[in-house]
């Protein structure tokens, strides 16, 4: 098992959570976690692992910090 801190931003946190420390199986990818949250992949506007953009296939490691946001364009 690995531990990953997950931050959900904007509407992704509705009926879910803001921040959680998640226990995940080794080999869990950004995409598989997104599916587990029942978020359609195409609705993910930004996925950052430790502050850097990561593709859906990116495998998560113990201690990673993941931010997921819907499509937001700016301010």
């Amino acid at each position, binding site marked *: 098992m690995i531990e990953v801190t997950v931050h959900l931003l904007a509407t992704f946190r509705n009926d879910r959570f803001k921040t959680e420390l998640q226990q995940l199986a080794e080999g869990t990818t950004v995409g598989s976690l997104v599916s587990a949250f029942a978020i359609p992949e195409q609705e993910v506007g930004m996925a950052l692992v430790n*502050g850097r953009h990561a593709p859906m296939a990116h495998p998560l490691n113990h201690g990673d910090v993941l931010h997921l946001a819907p499509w937001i364009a700016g301010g």
Partner: protein
Amino acid sequence: MDKIFRVDMSALNCSVEPVPSDWAALGGRALTSAIVAKEVPPTCHALGENNKLVFAPGLLSGTTAVNSGRLSAGAKSPLTGTIKESNAGGTAAQVLARLGVKALIIEGIPKGDGWYGLHLNKEGVSIVEEKELIGKGNFAVIEALEKRLGKTGVLTIGPAGEMKMLSANISVRDIDGKLRSHGRGGLGAVMGSKRIKFIALDDAGAPALALADPAKFTAAARTFAKAIMNHPGTGQGLPTYGTAEMVNIVNAAGGLPTRNFLHGRYEHNEKISGETLRETIIERGGNPSHGCQSGCVIKCSQVFLDKKGKYVTSGMEYETIEILGANAMIGDLDVIAEADHLMDDIGVDSIETSVAIGVAMEGGVLPFGDGQGVLRLLREELRAGTPLGRAIGSGAAGVGKLYGVTRVPVVKNQAIPAYDPRAIKGIGITYATSTMGADHTAGYAVATNLMGVGGGVVDPQKKDGQVELSRHLQIATVMLDSMGLCLFIGFPAADDPSCVPAVVDMLNARFGLELTPEWFGGLGVTTLKTERAFNVAAGFGREHDRLPEFFREPLSPSGAVWDFTGEEIDQFWNF
């Protein structure tokens, strides 16, 4: 037919002129910059009699096109010494367009200590002496003019503009009798130098705006509105959270300026986030989604109430919230909202002033996080124009010099807003190269760097592609600024192939032209080169297209540094 309205404050007379043919196809920023470049000597003192203050509505302003009510104000900036265009929402652009005002040019300086107001209506423009409103804040001016003249459009300066502070803005009455601002570059000081306290705009009895092809216009306007509503940025994100949606996004990317640009993350980000702002507003019965102009379908503004349900401010932007919240470490939306209200009333740019406060904190004027100290500074020092108040009102660069601070986030003397260029490098290229000094709105690379707007993410921490991205965006932004369109139209314009052709169709249907989308590119290039030529003649060279030295130091926690060479930045102008 549209006309040029000219007000000579030296002679105290007004005239109306036909539009010269080379200005006929211009509006908004393209026009203010063309006029300033032609009529203002680049080396003049920005607060002297040779500078001119120019207002121009966008080419689509006054029509039924949604989000087309931005007004451009232009002059030589007293803050930067460069050419300046600063645009704002509110009601003024629509009213000016309906009055047939292609541009309003204000020149000269009157003799003596008197103050004046301008009245612009279907009879033309007139100069009237003003006594009652001198020294008053912007909200009092709006209220008094509503009693005196009815619900007219108003452009006004606060005490900061009267005192010719370099951060003074020009405020615009919005549809609810509140304020929007031509914030950047000290244009309020230019208006103050001409001793004009307000400009009242009344379109009563003005004929309806003529359209060359009404049916074509309506069809294109519908396509345009649909493109805005269909884009997740303008259709969902901004209407829900306002621009403060960027707090958590930029924090996650490690580019949230904190403690005067020392760190890129703020531990209390949730206290000032768009999500928290929305919850707070709804809880108190305010309005989380409000438009800055009639005909706005994005509604990124909001009406913020205090704990007792009393109005505090509206149109509180990400930049103000971030710079006071994280960069000055205040971390309290109530204090930030009160500060926003005070800055609007006094009439100062909330970006320049907030960054100046962060620099003042670094210089030991007050501690980081001292929200009550900031409110006292605004109420007692800035409004009164004490020496400390004038120091803050001179902007971030001035405060840095006075207090011996070396970490001073400015380019060409204008404060860098709420995105650290080390972690979001595309916006750094815009800060460095913009003809306006540091200005995120000149080429908003953040959207592509972080969210992939316009065809995919350009990695924010790498140098690859950033110069090309900023160049493309700066050229495209001239189009928005010249049509009177909200900056956020840039998002559907980048992602939805129906958007830009719809803008061209509206323009053609409005004026009976046969322009193509390529024409916009040419307008952008010509305008940027015109502005650049003004700046070069004013004494600016490549060496001024640089970020401050401290950005070479690593930003925590990412360790990102600003690593562009001068030669790499200079590639920007190869077009």
